[in-house]
Structures are given as structure tokens and as C-alpha cells.
């Protein structure tokens, strides 16, 4: 069997006394969208931070492209082709949209002219073509999410980690971004997304992992995990599955 591009094996991360991630494993193959869902505070963002090198795991391994990359710093992982967005957007506030994306494009294109050309193409791909000269700090929340995506894409990644890029967008904005993400997988990228917008998760992802209280409690196709009583309990609280089940019967 071919090893998936990303495989996370038994990752744990402890903040002081709090075990934020507890022996979590997941994988993501190229050309496919994998979702990581779970209630707030489940440890999803912490797990992303470990994968992308911002936090060192207390235990476990991160394998990427067939190599153990556990504990490598973020910039080196980015060079290997791993890109991420931040849930709380981190624009280079003083720079224009163009210069924001330029920073990402510079990773593969040392010459300014080349990097600028790439930045403009990427901006158009994600629908920021009109805003290229806008200072980042004047953008709406929705546009900032796109900027996060554009910067990450400009690094020409093989693996894209998206941390709630749809959160806070209105339905029409979501309808615009969803095809962009789908197209990325179509181009052969491995996409892993943390997402609360279940509609998007259901329609986009091939495989879903569910994280609750730091543990992976379910995985499988979207239809499979949403039918899992353990997942329903994790979201709605103890005993919820029985109630929902009872409701279904009547």
C-alpha cells in the first residue's frame, strides 16, 4: 500500500496539566480532501500546530512524504510543501494584498518579478484579483480568510492545512470558496481542513476524522461519522444520541 502524503501517528500534546491532544492519529492522501471535525476545544487547532511545526508534540510522530518530520520548524516544513492557514487570521497588516501574497510566492521564486506574477495569478484564483492594492488591515473578515488561503497557495504546497477558512463567511461567500478548495484537490493537493460548516464537510471531504477531548473518536466517510452515536454525543452532550435515536423512532 502506498503511504499517504501525511500520516500523524499517536500524537499527544500537553500544556502544563492539560492533555490537549491525546494519542491522535490521522492521515491524508494526495488529491483528496480530509476533514477534521469536533466540538470547540477538542484540540483540533493544537493538532494542526503540531503537524505544521509550531508546537512540538509530547509524544508521537508526524510523517510527511515518507519521512519523519516530527519537531521540524515551520519554515522547513513549508519548504517541504506543507502550508497552513490560521483560524485567527494573521495578515501582514501594514502590507497590501499583493505584498501579502508575494511573501508566500517568494518561497519558490526568489526573483521579485516572478514572485509578483505568481502572486497575481493566485489572487485571481481565489477571487482577490480586484483587491490587490488594498492594505490588508482594511479588509473584511471574509476577504482576510481568502488572503490566508491565497498566501498559503502561493507557496505552491503539496499539503494544505486549512483551519476554519469558511467560518464567519455568509452562504454566498461559502458557495464561492467551496469550488476553489475542491479544485485544489483536483490538482493533486492533499487538503486537510478543520471545519464547522457541516454542509461543506459533507459535500467536500472524502474522509472525516472526529476529534473530541483530544482523542480521535471516529473516522470514515462523512455519512458514516455523522451517523456514529459517539460523534453525536461528543457534539450534543452525554445521552444525546439516545434522545436523537428515540426521536427518530417516533
Amino acid at each position, binding site marked *: 500500500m502506498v503511504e499517504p502524503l501525511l500520516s500523524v501517528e499517536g500524537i499527544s500534546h500537553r500544556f502544563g496539566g492539560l492533555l490537549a491532544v491525546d494519542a491522535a492519529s490521522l492521515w491524508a492522501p494526495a488529491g483528496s480532501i480530509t476533514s477534521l471535525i469536533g466540538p470547540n476545544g477538542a484540540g483540533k487547532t493544537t493538532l494542526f500546530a503540531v503537524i505544521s511545526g509550531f508546537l512540538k508534540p509530547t509524544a508521537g510522530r508526524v510523517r510527511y512524504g515518507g519521512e519523519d518530520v516530527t519537531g521540524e520548524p515551520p519554515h522547513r516544513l513549508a519548504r517541504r510543501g506543507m502550508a497552513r492557514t490560521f483560524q485567527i487570521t494573521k495578515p*501582514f*497588516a501594514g502590507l497590501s494584498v499583493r*505584498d501579502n501574497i508575494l511573501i508566500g510566492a517568494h518561497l519558490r521564486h526568489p526573483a521579485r518579478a516572478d514572485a509578483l506574477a505568481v502572486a497575481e495569478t493566485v489572487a485571481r484564483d481565489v477571487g482577490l484579483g480586484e483587491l490587490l492594492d488594498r492594505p490588508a488591515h482594511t479588509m473584511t473578515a471574509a476577504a482576510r480568510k481568502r488572503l490566508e488561503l491565497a498566501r498559503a497557495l502561493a507557496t505552491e504546497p503539496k499539503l494544505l492545512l486549512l483551519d476554519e477558512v469558511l467560518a464567519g463567511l455568509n452562504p454566498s461567500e461559502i458557495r464561492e470558496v467551496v469550488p476553489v478548495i475542491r479544485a485544489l484537490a483536483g490538482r493533486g493537493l492533499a487538503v486537510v481542513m478543520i471545519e464547522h460548516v457541516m454542509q461543506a464537510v459533507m459535500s467536500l471531504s472524502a474522509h472525516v476524522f472526529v476529534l473530541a477531548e483530544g482523542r480521535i473518536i471516529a473516522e470514515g466517510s462523512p455519512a458514516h461519522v455523522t451517523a456514529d452515536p459517539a460523534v453525536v454525543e461528543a457534539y450534543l452532550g452525554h445521552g444525546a444520541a439516545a434522545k436523537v435515536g428515540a426521536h427518530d423512532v417516533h
Partner: protein
Amino acid sequence: MKGFLLIAIVVAAFAAVPLVVHSNVTLNFLVVALLIALAGQGWNVLGGYGGQYSFGHAAFFGTGAYVTAVLQMRYGVNAWIGFAAGIAAGSAVGAIVGTLAFRAGLRSSYFALVTLAFAEVLRILASVAPITGAGVGMLIKLDLRAQSFQFQSRALFYLVILALVAVALVTAQMLERSRFGAWLIAVRENEDAAMALGVDAFSIKLGAMVLSAAITAAAGGFYAQYFLFVDAGIAYGTWISIEALLTPVIGGVGTVFGPLVGALAAKSLGEGAKLVTGDVPGLDLMIYGAMLVLVIRFVPHGIVGAFADVSDRIKRRVLAARAPAREAVHG
């Protein structure tokens, strides 16, 4: 290219000054202003473009000055070679301080504190070590020959410091056009986001610190040759740490011409005040301190930044005025 052309025009204009002005007082004023502009451009590379505010650039200025002086007087080394060695030594101090501070993850206040402390340590050491002349300081022997980096005419000194400033201006302009510079600015704006995009924040900051230290050390070396005297209070004194950051802050942090504009503005005010009240100790620094506070309060982007803001506003107004016209055509 527009940026480089502007630098060429500005430098040419400055170079023409000695053809018109023969007053030693004026030339001396300009030499000192350019010297401060050079030290400030060094600070600007790290602080303006990189967002790492150093309160101890005296560490680099002083090392440049002392190494230039000590190599000549103690070891008979040629002044120009001493000057080059001073720049190298200043860069080395930058590399050491930068490695320690950035490895320890020191940011903002902590970084300012640690740079300040290093400058103070060097000042105290220089004021007791026999090799630096300790408390007495060190005189450089008068030898008015170009090969000794000393000149009969003040105009030649002026042209040398102008050439150094020109190199620093071109360096800053190249920084704005290069990947290194783009990454440095990214680190200033948001270090985490920069790292996620493949920027090795530590190396970038360290590189900026070394470049910054080299430029400020060059100012120190020139100081030694121009005044032919160095002591700990001058070379490693807080005054130079303050002037090095004051000039870009006044002129505009993270802009090519900020330090030059700021140095001319600060020195003009300082000298102007001396004309009014006489040369009372503390007067110029008192004015600089007030300027620092007032500029941050009222001109937060500095003089160059304020001009850019105004021209942006005009551009936007012109565009806004055109937009309805275009709509009318389409309608």
C-alpha cells in the same frame, strides 16, 4: 528603478554642495548630520524593516570607532584597513548579540533591554580596559593624507561620508526590492505567519542585525577618523543609541530616505536651538527626547511617511473624482 534614480538625484545634489558652500561650519554640520543618518540607516534596517527595536546601537558604533582607532594606534595598521576591520568587528558584535537574543526568543521590550545592556557592558569595559586608553580615551595621530583616511579639506571628508550614506541608501532600496527584504518585513508584520510561509525568522533577523550593525559600525569608524578622538562615553554612549533610532523615527521608519531626512531635521532643530539659547549642555538631547514623543504622537509615520500618506490621499481623491465620470460614460 524609480527608487535608484531618486537616490542618484539626491546624492548628486548633496555632492554639489561643496561647490557652492565653502563655510566650514556648514560643511561640519552636514558631515555630522550625514554621520547620524548613516548610523540611523543601520538602525532602520533592523528596526524599520525588521521591527526589532534596538536601544543599544552604540554597541556597534563604538566597536567600529574603537577598532578603527586601536588598530591604527596600537598596531600601526593602515587607517582604511582599520576602518574595514571596524565594520567587520561591529558586524561580529551584531552577530553575537543577535544570536543570543533571537535564540532566546527575545522580542520588543526584552530585545530593547538586552541590546541596551550589551552597549552598557561594552561602555564600562572600554572605560577600564588599558587597550582602549581606558578613561582617558584615545587620540588618533594627525596625518592629513588620503591614505591615512584623513583629509586637508573638510569637503573631502564630506564626500566620503556622503559616499557611505549613498551605499546605505542603495542597500535600503535593494532591501525593498529583494526577497530578503520582503521576508524581513514579513517577520516585522507577523512572525508566525511568516514562518508558516517558509520564512526562517531567526536567520532573517540575524542577517538584518549583522547588516544593521555593519552600517552603524561604519558610522563609528568614520567618527573616529573625523574627530581623531574616541572615548567610552562618546563611542558607546547612550547618545548614539538614541540618535540612531531617533533619525529614522522622525524621518519615517522602514523608508529608504527616513534616516537622512530625520537626521537633517533633528540636527537642524538641535543647532537652531543652540543659536537661540547658546550651547547649554543637555539642550539638544532634551529637544530630541521631546521630538521623539511629539513625532510618535502627531506624525506616527515620520516625515517621509506623512508625505506618502498625503500623496496617497490625493491619489485616492483623484481616482474618486474620475470614477463617477467613467460610470457616466458606461451609463
